[in-house]
């Protein structure tokens, strides 16, 4: 087990290194003098020179990268030009909000996706199957920011059931927090639910035709037990690992969802940073999401290893 984790970590390290290289290289895309771009509105030559010193812009590019990488390894992703705060603390501040949104969205996606995929696979070729497939494809095809706007129009403006925007910490009021987060979570979970439904359906269809399911039926077990205890349990192995990998998509989707519902999370941080030309924050967010994705990948492998007895044998 420990050997497996170490092996996977060793494979992940070169990828992580390349992500840092890519994120650093982003600033090479800036047109003109990067010190001027990093200075934003500031035109004081002393400040620009200070930025040049701070980011080692007078050094050759490989040396600049080395400085940047060493700082990043120490958790220093630079200072936000806008807030004058360390990028790392900005990310740490905003992360719990997005994490809550992503977890709620994933729960919704798992419940809807697995249930619909299960029904669709059991009733393959029926109207239920066709309907579930259409709904799944619709979930994947609908732009979530538009779905958010439409839900605000219907649920908040027309019916007044839920607040249209804003955020309350669960530590202040859990009920109010859930009231505000449920609509964004549904919006964010819709596309993932579609993906999960398709994976569950595909995995269930494979499982239904497997020998162990035939054996379970031959033993005289009820169809319900065969499906839920034997087929679904095995079909869920790839679905759970797939769900872990979808976490990166949730972070992407959160950018738009948070924008629509004015949620002060991680997604809003990157969008605001883009408009404020706060490049250190943009780089920090990309590096952070890339690292999270690699960790989730590692977790997915680990889950697959733990859930699949054949790998452990």
């Amino acid at each position, binding site marked *: 087990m420990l050997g497996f984790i170490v092996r996977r970590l060793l494979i992940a390290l070169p990828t992580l290194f390349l992500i840092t290289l890519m994120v650093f290289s982003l600033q090479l895309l800036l047109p003109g003098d990067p010190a001027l771009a990093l200075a934003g509105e500031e035109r004081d030559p002393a400040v620009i020179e200070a930025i040049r010193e701070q980011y080692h812009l007078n050094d050759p590019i490989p040396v600049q990268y080395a400085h940047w990488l060493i700082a990043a390894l120490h958790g220093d992703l630079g200072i936000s030009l806008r807030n004058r705060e360390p990028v790392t603390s900005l990310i740490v501040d905003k992360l719990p909000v997005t994490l809550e949104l992503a977890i709620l969205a994933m729960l919704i996606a798992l419940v809807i996706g697995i249930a619909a995929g299960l029904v669709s696979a059991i009733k393959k070729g029926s109207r239920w199957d066709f309907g579930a497939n259409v709904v799944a494809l619709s979930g994947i095809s609908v732009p979530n920011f538009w779905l958010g706007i439409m839900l605000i129009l219907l649920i908040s403006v027309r019916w007044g059931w839920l607040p249209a925007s804003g955020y309350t910490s669960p530590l202040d009021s859990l009920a109010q927090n859930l009231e505000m987060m449920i609509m964004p979570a549904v919006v964010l979970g819709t596309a993932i639910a579609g993906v999960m439904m398709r994976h569950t359906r*595909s995995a269930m269809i494979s499982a239904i035709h497997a020998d162990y399911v035939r054996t379970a039926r031959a033993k005289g077990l009820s169809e319900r037990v065969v499906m839920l205890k034997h087929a679904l349990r095995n079909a869920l192995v790839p679905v759970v690992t797939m769900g872990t990998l979808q976490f990166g998509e949730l972070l992407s989707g959160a950018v738009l969802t948070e*924008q629509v519902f004015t949620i002060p999370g991680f997604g809003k941080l990157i969008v605001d940073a883009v408009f404020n030309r706060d490049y250190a924050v943009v780089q920090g967010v990309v590096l952070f999401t890339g690292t999270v994705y690699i960790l989730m990948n590692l977790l997915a492998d680990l889950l697959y290893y733990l859930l699949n007895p054949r790998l452990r044998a």
Partner: protein
Amino acid sequence: MLFIAVALLAPWLAPFDPAANDWTSIRQAPSAVHWLGTDDVGRDVLSRLLFGARASLYAGVISVVIAFCIGVPLGLLSGYYGGILELVISRIVEAVLACPFLILAIAFAAFLGPSLDNAMIAIGIAASPIFARLTRGQVLAIKTEDYIEGARAVGASDLRIICYYILPNVITPLLVQATLTIATAIIAESSLSFLGLGQQPPAPSWGSMLDTAKNFIVQAPWMALFPGIGIFVVVFGFNILGDGLRDALDPREAR
């Protein structure tokens, strides 16, 4: 087909100039004159929707062409030559894939500057690893086939083998992927435009129309309704086309 026809024929189909403000008909509901209503500065929503289809089609196709042109050669090289080259390219592909698609596209658009062209470049770069990975897998599956060995035996150069023997045999799944990626690229373009990083005003795009519309959803819901339906229908269409092609070309997927 309808979407492509609408996008190409927009100048002839649109009843009004999509960029012309009309201060006498601000936020008018759908009527006989303005079938889909008008926006916050009196522009005809239908005309903007038709011209917006052009931006979506343009962005979807060009982004995929960029992704294809970057990803396929990388996949061909890594799959065919293997060794260190494969190792390096695979790690690069994994690194790009590790960054969520939209966040990477936002980052590129941020550093390149907001415009439709830069959004397409950003989406193209972000989508290229999918093509590289798919191509590599296909090349690995066929490079030991007898006809490749045969071509090598008669002295065909590596370039000739790749271009004339391997590429034609791996192109089908790539075209299926391209169709599905057009759908993703259209959503990505509208997302970037919605965030203000794609098509810039006053030029119409479905995403930027929704960006404006979100400020007027109480007063003029039609401003948000129709561009969203447009994106949904087109993306749904491309996804169905991609799924259908995949099912037709790969019977294992048709289950």
